[in-house]
């Protein structure tokens, strides 16, 4: 597989460490009197991956959609890449959204377009990219998810796991600075979900992408917290014991619309909260 483009490496180096990429400030939203998020605050640092947990219907997907401005909160402020999403018009948001990628829970591929057109969607929208370059980059993105052979197929001809991976390819083709994954391993077999976990870890460790990752599976998050991507061998490897805090990975647990835990693996293991202890056991 290819090494990251040099432009990207430059950008990564220029970005100061500990810069906040995504910030929620006391965000609340209700759907028809049903309060879903009730004063959510957290920060995602540059290069960090934060796993978001919560029971079904706790508002995880809603949270990701809020970050992109696809939904508007009832109160609170949201910042992404230094811009205040909650104060921007839809037109202004289109610009910002080009720098952020989201992988939807149900993939949300365009079913009237084939895989190539889906993956190349952003490139076509930007115009000014030649057909050869599009071909090249589609191949690159699809090889990243190991699906080069599906390029002429339609979404309806793919399996759920393949759709999920095509959707990841569509999102990363322009190398966004922030990635939002909504349950990328949900309902997948262990082998496929491991491939996806590896992709996420690769985005984090090689491309230094900041991401929010919604998941139901604590096990997946533990894997990400305890593994790193080894560039020379081009695969994910377990961190030696004692080095566990070195990968930028954190956990955020939601309950009843509030954040009940936000911290790294070490802090999670030491927590005294009954609910969380039960959750992680």
């Amino acid at each position: 597989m290819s090494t990251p483009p040099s432009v990207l490496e430059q950008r990564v180096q220029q970005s100061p460490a500990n810069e906040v990429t995504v910030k929620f400030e006391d965000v609340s939203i209700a759907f028809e009197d049903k309060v879903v998020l009730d004063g959510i605050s957290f920060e995602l640092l540059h290069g960090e991956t934060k796993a978001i947990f919560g029971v079904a219907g706790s508002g995880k997907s809603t949270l990701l959609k809020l970050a992109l401005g696809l939904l508007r909160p009832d109160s609170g402020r949201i910042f992404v890449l230094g811009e205040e999403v909650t104060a921007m018009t839809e037109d202004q948001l289109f610009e910002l959204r080009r720098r952020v990628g989201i992988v939807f829970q149900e993939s949300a591929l365009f079913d009237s377009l084939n895989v190539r057109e889906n993956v190349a969607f952003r490139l076509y929208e930007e115009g000014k990219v030649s057909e050869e370059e599009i071909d090249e980059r589609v191949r690159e993105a699809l090889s990243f998810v190991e699906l080069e052979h599906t390029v002429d197929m339609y979404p309806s001809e793919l399996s759920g796991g393949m759709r999920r991976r095509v959707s990841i390819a569509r999102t990363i083709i322009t190398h966004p600075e922030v990635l939002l994954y909504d349950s990328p391993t949900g309902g997948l077999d262990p082998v496929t979900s491991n491939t996806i976990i590896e992709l996420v870890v690769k985005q984090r460790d090689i491309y230094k992408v900041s991401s929010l990752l919604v998941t139901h599976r604590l096990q997946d998050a533990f894997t990400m917290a305890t593994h790193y991507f080894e560039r020379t061998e081009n695969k994910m490897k377990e961190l030696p014991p004692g080095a566990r805090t070195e990968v930028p990975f954190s956990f955020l647990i939601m309950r009843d619309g509030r954040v009940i835990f936000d911290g790294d693996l070490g802090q999670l293991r030491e927590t005294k909260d009954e609910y969380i202890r039960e959750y992680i056991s």
Partner: protein
Amino acid sequence: MDIELISPSEWVKQQVKSVQDYTLIASRSIANLFTGPRYLADTTQQADLIGWGSLPIIVLTGFFTGAALAQNSGSTLQRFGSVTLIGQLVSLGMVRELGPVITGLMVAGRNASGMASELGSMVVTEQIDAMRALGTDPMRKLVTPRVLSTVTMLFFLTIISDFLGLAGGGVASSLFFGVDSHQYWSTAWQILVFQDVFMGLAKPVLFGFIIATVGCYYGISARGGTQGVGRATTQAVVASSILIITVDFFVTRLSMTLFGQ
């Protein structure tokens, strides 16, 4: 339809909201024409779908509407012994009224439903959200091309329908009333004045706008899975058909007040 009991004030609020949403879609679809990005490929694709796709039914309905109109007018005119006026009646009827309305209703049935179901499915499968997330404005990429191509195509389809209606009328009047076809065509042609043609061609522009905006509005506001999409599709056809017929009345009235007669 859902049988849901809601308070009258809630109902009014919902209706006001719908009108607001519709107005927003309708006005944005026009405003987007004046600024980029524009989606030419999407527009021509839609034009092809609406124009070519509707051509066969427009040819058939136009022809038989004209023929039926000629039969009815002919039998009435015969009583007064002035069957030679048949060309004028068919011509005025087709160009001012039936050509635009029949074409509008046909395209509404075919394309307003198509747009509502296509956009509706995209809403319920989050494809619209995905499009927004990928930095593309669905109003520009989906709605404006549909409005532009429906207006353009309906304009030309109506002209075709008018001609086929005249042809159908010509065939019927020579077949059943023995009217000389040369005489039929020349009287049909001579009776038309500027205001008839203007009214006849202003209507498809409005109807095309109604069909596309109503179709897209119901599609974009679809909620509740496949059933919701089905409901949106039906409502789009019903609403656009009713609007076409109502607007037709007012345009006719307005045009007569403006130009006299």
